[in-house]
């Protein structure tokens, strides 16, 4: 169907074809197919932005940072809700940072750890991470929870550090993704004023 768009991706990306066709092609189709404008006329900047976005997404999938649920969120975004993904992810960031602070505060207590509260916060963080497709963060929460259940304090401390690190990585990458998306959308708006665009 949209195979005529794919050759451009093959030139620019060096990722396994399966990832490209399944993930990259989605983003190509999502915006350009509707206008029916051949790629060669789009301008190199726009194409490079999309390539960057696809490459970043491919990387994140490859690394297991994101999973298919993130794509599901993308699918829920359309003209009626054009910023859905960034809205949900922004809420996720707020909520997660609260939970991470809670976790850190609970672990700061030198004597007694409130294991019940730890588990509650972990479950909440795990749930929201899974809902947006943040696979690695979610998995680390699961490991952290295991450490709590085993009363393994040092494992808990380690898990918290890994969790914070992973969360930061995820946040940075998603910000990067949204920035590229913003630039692309702006660029398209300038280039094709008045053309309906998701």
């Amino acid at each position, binding site marked *: 169907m*949209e195979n005529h768009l794919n050759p451009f991706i093959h030139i620019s990306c060096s990722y396994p074809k399966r990832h490209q066709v399944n993930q990259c092609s989605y983003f190509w189709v999502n915006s350009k197919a509707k206008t029916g404008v051949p790629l060669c006329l789009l301008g190199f900047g726009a194409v490079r932005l999309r390539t960057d976005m696809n490459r970043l997404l491919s990387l994140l999938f490859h690394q297991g940072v994101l999973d298919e649920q993130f794509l599901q969120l993308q699918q829920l975004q359309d003209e009626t809700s054009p910023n859905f993904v960034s809205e949900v992810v922004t809420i996720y960031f707020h909520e997660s940072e609260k939970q991470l602070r809670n976790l850190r505060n609970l672990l700061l207590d030198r004597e007694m750890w409130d294991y019940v509260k730890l588990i509650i916060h972990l479950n909440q963080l795990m749930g929201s991470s899974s809902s947006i497709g943040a696979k690695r963060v979610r998995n680390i929460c699961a490991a952290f929870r295991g450490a709590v259940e085993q009363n393994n304090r040092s494992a808990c401390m380690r898990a918290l550090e890994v969790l914070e690190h992973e969360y930061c990585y995820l946040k940075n990458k998603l910000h990067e993704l949204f920035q590229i998306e913003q630039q692309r959308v702006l660029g398209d708006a300038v280039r094709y004023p008045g053309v309906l665009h998701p």
Partner: protein
Amino acid sequence: MSAMFSRRWRSQPETTTTTTTDVHVLAVDDSLVDRKVIERLLKITSCKVTAVESGWRACQYLGLDQEDKTSPEFVNGLKVDLIITDYCMPGMTGYELLKKIKGSANFREVPVVIMSSENVVARIDRCLEEGAEDFIVKPVKLSDVKRLKDYMFGETRGTIPSADKNNKEEKGSFNKRKLQEMSDNSPPLSLSSSPPLSLSSSPSTSQSPPTSSPSTSPSPPNLSPSTSPSTVSPSNSPSPPTESPTTSSSPQSPSSSESPSSTPPTSPPFSPSQLESPTMRLKVTNYDQA
């Protein structure tokens, strides 16, 4: 786009039990992220949504917190077609909310669906025994919501399948069988499309059952629209707009005569008996990956 969805959906014949066409769903979840997602999922399938943050608020909304609030005006003014609730919530759990709803005179007929991130058989059984219509493992996907809507409100608009006790038991045992089958599968990514459950979840299996195997490949099957003509709904845009509403709202119903013309005229894999039994998408996730 949502207008196109609801237009297609309305082409189903309406029963006389209700005159409104929109399905009103009460969604209950303590997580704001999940509320946002479920709200969007429901809206995109043309449902009206009221999202609340706790079981207690849900009871308030339904008037269950006040024993004497059973006036017909209140009940008739409040039309709730489906209640979908998270299981793990502080205060009142989804299970407790389920019991309250099933114990109420006004709302016991309303189907209740439980969502949970934990795939615990005992929990699932308990909920089904208490009268839950279905149990969805989180994260909730568009295919889950569509399946739910189709089998609950697809061809029997306004009537509720759970009125039939036998039906429920059959569903319950069907689910148990699926549980056993599913626990043997452990796909690398949590996919909804293992062959027995491939009724409506994965687009690449929807019209051609023999090709259910491609859908078990690790990369998201939803995104290969070129493989099957009917896979347009999740990807949302590759094909001309006319195709997407068709596949999103009605192709999964057994009496579907609206299957996209480009698909082979196979007898639909979803025979009515299959569709009546709620299929549960179960995931086996690897906790030891971290």
